[in-house]
């Protein structure tokens, strides 16, 4: 299916802006999967950032296998966003600070009556910031959808600038 890239990227940005809690799947060097909750933010190129306490299992997994998969779900609209790509630790201090500030804002908004653990990590400086770069993001809205093929349901949005994109990932979720 042919998709207008700008529009699709804007949909993804809008979804990420309103849905900042996801689950990150990583794999150990023994091939054992691990899934953990993360708060996320993103940049204009749709790189996704998260932070975690140093030494967590996801952090250890990323250092031995830098591939990761992020899933975000909005139950009200039955919309999923999936991103699979590689992760690097962010060392640029200004970018680390930007991510920490943004996640602090997001986390306290998500849970205004009780500061979530991420805000305590940021306060204590005991964290690392990571960037997930995926070649494409997969967005699907199921609410109101009749039975349909994956081509009709999944919108594959490339993160790199291209005028148009004609693609369909036959692997469904």
């Amino acid at each position, binding site marked *: 299916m042919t998709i207008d890239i700008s529009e699709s990227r804007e949909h993804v940005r809008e979804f990420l802006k309103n849905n900042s809690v996801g689950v990150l799947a990583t794999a150990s060097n023994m091939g054992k999967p691990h*899934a953990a909750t993360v708060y996320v933010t993103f940049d204009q190129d749709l790189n996704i950032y998260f932070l975690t306490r140093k030494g967590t299992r996801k952090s250890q997994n990323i250092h031995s296998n830098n591939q990761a998969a992020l899933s975000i*779900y909005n139950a009200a609209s039955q919309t999923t966003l999936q991103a699979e790509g590689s992760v690097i630790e962010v060392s640029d201090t200004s970018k680390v600070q930007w991510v920490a500030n943004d996640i602090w804002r997001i986390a306290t908004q998500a849970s205004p009556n009780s500061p979530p653990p991420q805000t305590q990590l940021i306060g204590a400086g005991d964290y690392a910031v990571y960037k997930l770069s995926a070649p494409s993001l997969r967005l699907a809205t199921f609410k109101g959808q009749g039975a349909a093929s994956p081509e009709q349901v999944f919108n594959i949005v490339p993160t790199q600038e291209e005028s148009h994109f004609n693609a369909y990932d036959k692997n*469904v979720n």
Partner: protein
Amino acid sequence: MNTEAYNDIRTYIDRNPIATLGTINPDGSPHGAVIYVCADNHHSIVYFITKQATKKYQNITERNQVGLTIVNPPENSTLQANGHAFEVQDPLVIDMVMKKIAHDHASARDWLPPIAKLRAGAYVIVGVELTEARLAQFKGMTIGDERIFTKL
């Protein structure tokens, strides 16, 4: 099995029946997908519905180790679990899972799980026998407080 801990975890799953499943792709990279889940009443097993042509099901048939996570942001709580996936064959269990998932989502206007809308082969019920599970409830707690965690 720690029965008391499992009861807390089961109650949590009943209240938060949407999870993300982590599996491993053939190339060793991880895959994550959202699933609607329910917990067994007596054994430490979590069930979900999927279809045979999905990536997660194909991954499970190759490597049955999975990670499973549920998050409730307003409550600052999350369940992290690992286990072994298996295809459920027992018709009584399949019936129980279908009824429970329908019941848990009955209040939703569009209760059918997303997988129901996807043409991806035949339905299959998968069970995940939990090998470890950790329920973390951070609300009102300081990091490091042992009361945050309920472990199976």
